[in-house]
């Protein structure tokens, strides 16, 4: 008699890869569970990546999803996580092809999904900065809102994404070389916003998001845009409600 763990391991192998099932009464019916696994995964992935499904078509999306399932099976009892590696998977699959933008559109859709379910947090306002000693400004660090993400692409991904939503009726011609998008994805009170940011703003936020100081973020921003103005950018970020925590360095002696 198979021990429970051995039985479970063999059964899951049978569902993923078609291993021996001589320990069940009607082996033909394993197909029902195999079908549930595949269809459930394809359906959940399609809900998270409607733009990719429309770009590649339903039939090809199914093939992509099954290959993705084989390489990156679900790791949790909650299907919200399954798309985490879909953008890197597409990047590898379509590297050096004319479809390199698929991965960036997938990254945007993943950021959208994450923003939908991320924690709530109260943004800080300009008042929080007013109490800081100006000498400390360059050492400030900010936590970005949990329901925010930065997606950089060499392609016009906002237009591509918009043109490929399920409710979009007509196909649109988009020139892939028209210029890339640096997108800030942010959950507002009742919607998810995609903000196309200037290069300097985006570089500054990328630096801040990794924990860099305001001084370092300013350097990053100015290296891509010599005219970058920190004060204007900061006011814009605060007005968006993008910062939820301010870290002031310990007072110097």
């Amino acid at each position: 008699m198979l021990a429970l763990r051995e039985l479970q391991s063999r059964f899951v192998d049978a569902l993923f890869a078609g291993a021996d099932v001589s320990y069940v009464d009607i082996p033909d019916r394993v197909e029902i569970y195999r079908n549930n696994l595949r269809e459930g995964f394809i359906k959940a992935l399609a809900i998270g990546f409607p733009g990719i499904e429309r770009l590649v078509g339903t039939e090809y999306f199914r093939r992509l999803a099954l290959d993705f399932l084989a390489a990156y099976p679900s790791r949790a009892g909650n299907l919200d996580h399954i798309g985490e590696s879909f953008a890197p998977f597409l990047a590898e699959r379509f590297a050096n092809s004319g479809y390199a933008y698929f991965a960036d559109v997938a990254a945007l859709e993943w950021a959208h999904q994450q923003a939908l379910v991320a924690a709530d947090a109260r943004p800080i306002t300009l008042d929080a900065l007013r109490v800081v000693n100006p000498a400390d400004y360059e050492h400030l660090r900010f936590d970005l809102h949990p329901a925010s993400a930065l997606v950089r692409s060499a392609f016009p991904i906002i237009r591509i994404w918009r043109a490929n939503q399920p409710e979009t009726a007509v196909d649109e011609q988009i020139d892939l070389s028209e210029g890339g998008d640096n997108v800030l994805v942010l959950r507002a009170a009742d919607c998810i916003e995609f903000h196309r940011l200037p290069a300097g703003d985006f570089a500054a936020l990328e630096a801040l998001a990794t924990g860099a100081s305001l001084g370092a973020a300013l350097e990053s921003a100015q290296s891509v845009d010599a005219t970058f103005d920190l004060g204007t950018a900061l006011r814009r970020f605060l007005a968006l409600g993008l910062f939820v925590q301010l870290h002031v360095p310990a007072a110097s002696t």
Partner: protein
Amino acid sequence: MTFCIPLTPAAESVPVALASLSAGVGLRAVHHNEVLETRPRVGWFEAHSENYFARGGALPRILGRIREHYPLSLHGVGLSIGSTDPLSRTHLADVARLVRDFEPLLVSEHLSWSSVGGRFTNDLLPLPYTEEALRHMVDRVRQVQDFLGRQILIENVSSYLQFTCSTISEWEFLGALAHESGCGLLLDVNNVYVSAMNHGFDAHTYLTHIPRRAIQEMHLAGHSKRRIGDRDVLVDTHDGPVCDAVWELYVAAVNRFGPVPTLIEWDSNIPTLELLAAEAHKADRITEARHARAA
């Protein structure tokens, strides 16, 4: 440039007293706004716990508003309680947070497993009914109840095959599990019917052998038929109305177990709320008839 994708329009919330517990329906996202706007006449709603794991944003807000107007139960589909992998502490913590935030009337999971070695099928897989599996389930249910600090209900699943090593019937397994772990049982009448047809046992025998006092909730749902090899198999698809044979079995279940909170589940080809409420009222008429006879 800003592009805005609406989450959901805001709905007004008006407090009401808890309705008496006539039959409820499964809560599905497509009905969220309509539930809040029209306040359908159903006894309660059951939410799949995993659908509301979001830490913030619209989903917990909506569930909170619905909870202001209806009793709620939390029904887990992803804990993989029967797996031999360690229980996921993060999954349990998410369920515990929902229990704390939404104060559900009932919390349930399935007599099943869905993962091993960290690979999840996100399906409700049947267990072999052996002494070893029973000991394992008793231990796991205890762990979950200890973690949540409350009793949970365990639901029988539909199954399409049996493991040849099984030595105990499903009803004996469930009865022993309830007795030893202190959990309650959620009797899915459709699942009893589907498994009875698939495995050739008598559904009434099943009901007769389930301990009366363990049943705290019942589910009703639709199923479909598939041809595999040279035989038909019933599949638990939740994609249509409850069939006549399952209504008949429900009458027998109500006669045996008395009126317990009953839920209509319909998860695919989801109908209008109106049709769901009509199915729930049909269940109410059966419990009321039994009540009238008992009086």
